[in-house]
């Protein structure tokens, strides 16, 4: 608006609207999204290993405790661990088939989760079991690790199958 040569400052009118669900109270959609820069830091060798068809756990340099998921320090005595190769053959410690899930994995349902156990290893490893009907999975079932050819540097680069 011009008045005696002066301009009243004014916010620009924009064409984007908002997604409104309700007016009383006002309920609207609020989009939020972020790219996050994540470092695997000391666990990086595990993920590098997966890309080379290698499954690695941790072994305590002092007390000898063994962990099926990497821990760079021992949870029993606090000393540093070293990497150790886990055998590719293992057994199902427990399992479930998920028919629902978080949004990110909904498209993949149903999928079967297993905790993998190895004799002589003190803890387990969470993974997916592929190619087995839910009703055919059982505790103690022998399984074998397989690796994606195209690594995504995620724990799902390894998965388990039966022979």
């Amino acid at each position, binding site marked *: 608006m011009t008045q005696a040569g002066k301009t009243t400052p004014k916010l620009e009118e924009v064409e984007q609207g908002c997604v409104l669900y309700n007016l009383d109270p006002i309920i609207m959609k*609020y989009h939020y999204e972020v790219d996050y820069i994540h470092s695997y830091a000391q666990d990086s060798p595990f993920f590098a290993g997966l890309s080379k068809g290698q499954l690695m756990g941790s072994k305590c340099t002092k007390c000898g405790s063994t962990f099926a998921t990497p821990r760079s320090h021992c949870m029993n005595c606090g000393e540093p661990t070293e990497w150790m190769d886990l055998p590719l053959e293992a057994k199902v410690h427990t399992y479930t088939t998920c028919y629902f*899930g978080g949004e990110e994995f909904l498209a993949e349902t149903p999928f079967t*989760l297993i905790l993998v156990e190895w004799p002589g290893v003190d803890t387990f490893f*969470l993974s997916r079991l592929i190619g087995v009907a839910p009703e055919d999975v059982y*505790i103690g079932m022998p399984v074998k690790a397989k690796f994606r050819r195209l690594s995504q540097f995620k724990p799902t680069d390894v998965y388990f199958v039966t022979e």
Partner: protein
Amino acid sequence: MKPVYMVAGGITKFSKASPKKDFRYMVKEAFDAAMADVPNLTLDQIDGSITSYFSDHFTRQLMAGIMVHDYLGLTPKPSKRIESGGATGGMCLQSAWEAIASGRMDVCLAVGFETMSHVNTWKGNEFIALASDTNFDYPVGGFYTGYYAMMVKRHMHEFGTTVEQLAAVSVKNHKNALHNPYAQFPAELTIADVLNSEMVADPLKRLDICVMSDGAASAILCSEEMAFKLTDKPILLSGVGTGTDAMRLSDRPSREVILLPHENPEDYKDLKYPGVHSFRGGRAAAKQAYKMANIQNPLEELDFVELHDAFTSSEIQTYEDLGLCKYGDGGKFIESGAANLDGKVPVNPSGGLLACGHPVGATGLMQAVFSFWQLQGSIAQHFGGDDTLQLKNAKRGLIHSHAGTGTYITATVMERGF
């Protein structure tokens, strides 16, 4: 340590969504409800607050704790926010207990809330799953029901627990809630209803799992002197215990069973513990709380328990962790009727999380409020005149709050202080 009493509590009715009230308003409602029961208490006598909510993702607002404290008119007094996953509410209560026990405060307000309705259920599941290890667990199919399903599969394998026993927990808790006006999901169910509900993660079905909620709860804790000035029916928090376990379910090496006073090592000769079938943190929490409250045998010395039944399986596993029965006997315990409203030790007489809802940061405080009313004998007064859930002569109870796969667990013994 100074004795710590609860003098009042308040809850909002938990609901699927509460678009007319934001988290500050909901907390205010729960706070006002508590204040209404102690008319002699003024705002300026409150020395500070502990606030609790679980997820910044659900609020889309960091530092929501100070917004609550501010909204209640408590600035510039001390306050802090507590977060410990599903155990957030229970931990908040214990943090307020610490403030009084240490003598730092004479009156401390514990308030908690969660507003989970702002995203759809699938996104909500994803937000919750971010409370599992994001390097190794979440990307494999992050889903808490899946993790608990694996735990109970192993419980069934070790001890012969059945899906009918799981379903019986759901039937009991939903039924109790028929008489709780605060409950989000009261229902008259049969075992068959539960077994026929949709499979979510084998063996857990829709009716084995609590729902997401919006809600708030509050508890006012006091020193002995203040407590008896404010009410003639204060409730003593006579024992607190807190236990933990490894973040990753897969990461819990076998050790000896932590024994309670009434147990023997021979009871568990060949048991690998905790495996993934038991929550060692729950046992650790119970042991500390019993010691402080001088409880030798919880089954004989507790009149009721309000425990964290986010899944029917967790209730059965928790009977064992709390020593209400031996490890492995949880399934038989529900079957025996001991946990029923008229049983030896009623468990979740309120309806629990399964039927009341689970607005995470409020849940542990909700349990404190229900137990408080139970011990005061004021259930009918707070439940619109319905005294069905009032346990006759309840003198001592235990509340139990639990975070994802048993990472943080609190156990708090409450008893009549009058």
